[in-house]
């Protein structure tokens, strides 16, 4: 399934939706739309080979957690199409990027816009921290650092079964502080899991602020290579660079694309809050109003009428 719109248009659409949502709700994971807009747009609009969605455009309400008494339980993976051998799979490892991921599903026609209105509402499956029953999610990743390992296991299993589809993991840079990320790369390299792909939003920020002030991680490209992955670093807002990066040969190794990004890209006023952009809640009505006007102008839309 391919979208007729350009990936630039999809990225802009994602940002407009996340912006509108954050304005109406007086806050949200807004800066992740700035940094990751191109990456998720590119994955869904161009790179991933996905079938048509198997779940309803308007998400169903929450239908219970997995348990023996809930035999109809299913995940939200159906928004990415069927899990058949020829298709790719995607995990959103940092589950707080869910808002951006949901906006992406809408922009590429996999979920209805109503889905975003259900975000973080009681009884809804469209959870703030993407749960495995949330649209587009297949596993729980809210505890950061487990996504790449699960991806490696799935990729290994699919390779063993001779499946053509690739396994992709969208990652955040905070995850490199977790030891498990390195264990995952080590295992993927050791077992030659080259059908495993990751693209990481390297926005240099985490909850407490700049990564360098919280816990320096150094030259992660060299570190990934030393752990046995093929690793390429690109400008994460440059789609041509992204398209080229994935062509890198990586026989017997997982491919990790480090997308260096700017956490206020396309929303210049957010720089005022730099480097504390992990969760943007407007500090006053005045700030909310100023940001509304400024970001709307940057994104080429009318300011959001959030009064009702």
């Amino acid at each position, binding site marked *: 399934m391919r979208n007729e719109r350009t990936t630039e248009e999809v990225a802009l659409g994602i940002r407009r939706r996340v912006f509108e949502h954050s304005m109406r709700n007086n806050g949200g994971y807004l800066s992740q739309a700035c940094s990751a807009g191109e990456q998720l747009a590119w994955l869904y609009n161009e790179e991933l080979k996905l079938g048509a969605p198997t779940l309803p455009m308007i998400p169903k309400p929450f239908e219970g957690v997995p348990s023996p008494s809930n035999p109809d339980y299913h995940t939200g993976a159906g928004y990415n199409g069927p899990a058949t051998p020829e298709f790719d799979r995607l995990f959103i490892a940092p589950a707080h990027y869910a808002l951006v991921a949901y906006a992406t599903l809408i922009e590429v026609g996999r979920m209805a816009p109503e889905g975003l209105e259900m975000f973080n509402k009681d009884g809804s499956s469209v959870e703030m921290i993407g749960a495995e029953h949330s649209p587009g999610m297949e596993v*729980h*990743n*809210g505890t950061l650092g487990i996504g790449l390992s699960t991806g490696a296991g799935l990729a290994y299993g699919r390779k063993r079964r001779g499946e053509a589809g690739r396994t992709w993991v969208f990652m955040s840079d905070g995850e490199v502080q977790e*030891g498990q990320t390195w264990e995952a790369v080590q295992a993927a390299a050791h077992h030659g899991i080259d059908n495993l792909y990751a693209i990481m939003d390297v926005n240099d920020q985490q909850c407490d602020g700049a990564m360098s002030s919280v816990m320096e991680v150094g030259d992660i490209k060299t570190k990934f290579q030393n752990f046995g992955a093929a690793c390429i670093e690109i400008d994460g807002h440059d789609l041509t660079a992204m398209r080229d990066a994935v062509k890198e040969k990586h026989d017997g190794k997982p491919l990790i694309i480090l997308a260096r990004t700017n956490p206020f890209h396309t929303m210049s006023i957010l720089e005022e809050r730099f480097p504390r952009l992990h969760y943007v*809640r407007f500090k006053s009505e005045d700030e909310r109003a100023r940001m509304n006007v400024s970001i709307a102008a940057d994104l080429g839309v009318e300011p959001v009428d959030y009064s009702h």
Partner: protein
Amino acid sequence: MVEMVSRPYAKAFESFAAGNPDILCLSADLTSSCEVDGFRDRHPDQFISLGMAEQNMMSFAGGLGLAGYRPFIHTFGVFMYRRPYDQLMASIAYPRRKVRLMGFLPGITTPGGMTHQSIEDISVMRSIPNMTILETGDATEVESICEAADSIDGPVWCRVLRGSVPRLFDTPIKVGEMRELSSGDDILVVTSGICTEEAMRARSALAKAGLSIRHLHLHTIKPFDSKALLDHIGSVKHGVITLENHVTEGGIGSLVAETMADAGVGKRLIRLGLKDTYAHGGSRPYLMRYYGLDALALVRGIEDLTGQQFGITENDLDSARVEDVHSLVKAEAL
């Protein structure tokens, strides 16, 4: 109207720790979410940023303990025992390091879903030798948690409330004791954490229905004063009911059950809490209703225990507090 206290932990930790050279504040990239951002900014020499790397943080804290420090670890409760359980055991619990484990967002107090909700931590901690367990149920307990935890010669697991917290009590935590909130003789209600406020919401409706309730609030879960509990059980006619923000396996319901079984008490016990289930994301009142942790669930449990119907509905209960998801007292919306 109950008094609401804004960010009680922030102030309490700072006034307790500032200037005490043996106390260090550790954080794993959730500094403002755990209300120690002000402390970090004003007392940087006592603050250690360890990044989002909890396994290392636990053993690192063990090492600090070996050097004679008393580290206070700050992160969401789940991130302090699920992944780094082995480190918690080997580096902290076994050698009885004086590490104070400040676990935020206990149980379903967060809309973050399964990965953010510590629903089985008490069960886990109860089974760890050398561990002390404290749980806060109001602002006064949050204000006294640092002192209480630091009085223990060994590791301490604390369930800490954050943000806007109601004040229900006027005396600090006295480790090892329990609070007797009412002294009736029909039924014993035992609660902890945020469930105590729920039980208080049902108080007047139950009194109107003619029931005499004895209500105990537990802030100290381990060590536990079994004798005091048994005395209270002996003072009621019908039986005991527990309500907790935790799975019923291994939490305070189990604690009461074990105490009763050990002493051969033949009264009925009903344990309310998460019934062998994970939870999902949603607001606190919604989740408390959905999983049966609220005042109404307690009333239904009491009806079951007494075999009577009281006709009590939501309207008869004191109103629930509705939290503002986007309140400025929280760093994010979790």
